[in-house]
């Protein structure tokens, strides 16, 4: 009995590691299914996540959410989306406040499930999860015309 469970867990772990090694992790930018636009430029998206851009093209207020600092999603986002390290990002937000600018810092949510739930419930919400975590409660935003899995997708 115990050996069977061990075998099952080992096989499961092996399969996870293999898939992680074979395919690079990709971020999927998710938005509300009903309200948000379906596409965005990477630069435009960066401004929204950074809090520099406060409205969607349709006038809806942008509400950016993200996973905590120690999550793999956040690490990938720092590299592909923010293009700065955590210290620089903290300094960026503090300097914005210092300069009297209005920026809406993304709110942290604890899990991918919570993030998806938030996005599904808020029309202007935008966040990012691993592409493998996406379900049909949210819409995946095309970034520079490409979706996760497409060649040339920039958030990987």
């Amino acid at each position, binding site marked *: *009995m115990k*050996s*069977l*469970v061990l*075998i*099952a867990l080992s*096989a*499961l772990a092996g*399969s996870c590691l293999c898939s992680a090694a074979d395919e690079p992790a990709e971020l999927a930018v998710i938005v509300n299914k009903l*309200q948000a636009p379906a596409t965005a*430029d990477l*630069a*435009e998206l*960066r*401004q929204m996540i950074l809090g520099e*851009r*406060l*409205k969607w093209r349709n006038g*809806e*207020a942008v*509400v950016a*959410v993200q996973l*905590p*600092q120690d999550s793999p999603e956040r690490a990938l986002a720092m590299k592909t989306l923010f*293009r*700065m*390290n955590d*210290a*620089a990002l*903290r*300094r960026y*937000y*503090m*300097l*914005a*406040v*210092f*300069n*009297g600018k*209005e920026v*809406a*810092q993304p*709110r*942290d*949510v*604890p*899990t991918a*499930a*919570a*993030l998806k*739930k*938030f996005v599904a*419930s*808020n*029309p*202007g*919400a935008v966040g990012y999860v691993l592409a493998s975590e996406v379900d049909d409660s949210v819409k995946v935003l095309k970034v520079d015309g490409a979706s996760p899995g497409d060649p040339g997708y920039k958030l990987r």
Partner: protein
Amino acid sequence: MKAVLLVLTLAWASVTVKAGEPSDQPPVTQATIDKLLAVIAAHEARIEQLEKKLGETPSVAPDPAPPATSAASQALSSPPAQPQESASTGHNMAIPGGGPILNIRGFFDFNFGTGSIANPLVFPIIDNGCGTCGNSVTPPHSTFQAGEFDLLMTSKLSDHLSFLAEIVLGPDDTNVFGPDIERYQLTYRANPYFSVSAGRFHTSIGYYNTAYHHGNWFSTAEGRPIMYLFEDSGGILPVHMVGVSFAGDVPHTDKLGLHWIAEVGNGLSSNPFASESVQNFYSDRNYKATNLAAYIKPQFLPGLQIGGSWYHDGLNPTQAQNPLPVPPLRQNIESAYVVFFSPDWEFMTEAVLLSNRVMGASGSFRSPMAYTQIARGFGIYKPYFRYQYVRDNPQDPVNLLKGTYYGPSIGMRIDFATYAAFKLQFNHLYQSSQLAGNGLDAQVAFTF
């Protein structure tokens, strides 16, 4: 679930293959598999239950099926889920009974300097022509120096209305700590395209003046370029203004990121020797200073900002509170800058031309000034280099700096903690009619 089933099938297959071999393990029956599946299903249900609980954290889970706009505004106004947000706005306090929340953030720097121009970028440069012997105000010696104790306060009064104030306590060569309300500005932000602020603010001349005005922790180098010295430290630019400022994005220029700024204010005192050259309360003339600025932040290259400004004022020294026998002047200040910040690189270059023209006379007294700074980050280490040039026309009737100052500064910034940095900077400064001076300054700058 499908993955688990697949794994179990694979596991079952591997067990079946091995079934032909002699083994002392008991045979796996269908009942065992069913039992295992039930255990896994129970675990999955438990995980789902826990995830649901986490998802119901008040800050991230709005009420079921809320109206579209109210959900968004709820999310914006709900308390932060993580302390990261408050880390950028500062410590805050609310008085029982309600009312706006006051956010406070502090900055401080402490220095050790040695040499005749150890810290010329903060304090007045008055050398009296003695070159390497230093000057009568700050003679060459080694000294510990308190920097600026800077308290930044912000408060949001309503969705559109906010207040920002900055109080700085700092000593100068008199060794006396003096309080300065460096900024106080009430801002009404109608939308991204229009906001108006009233109060005392940093004049939008160039980049450094508004980006790193106080709060030395923000700036890579240990002090300000000479061209941006404060008015009460011998600086010749009107780096503060009391009046109103309008600003916003330009619609339909998202890709270019074009922003505009228009400012109207008192301008500096017509007498540069006044005890306070920023006219906080009393203006010695009806003529108001105006400043127009614009900058772009193109989307195609995040971190790049290019801008410029044009400032105009009219001074009348004979009408100053302490009159000077100088005819009325018209003052124009043009500035241009390019800055670029990437995760590793930092580049800033700025140029300003100040012109004072005596009314009725031909020609102007021109004072050009510029600096370029470049830095490269290697983890917590960031070496940097700055070269600056300031030529204050010696014949100018109202400028205080007088003469030419130019030379390099080289330094190293070490971010030894998240909110604290150590900086070591060497300055070599040529001064007209004087011998070149040297200085070494060590600084610890932090935010709290």
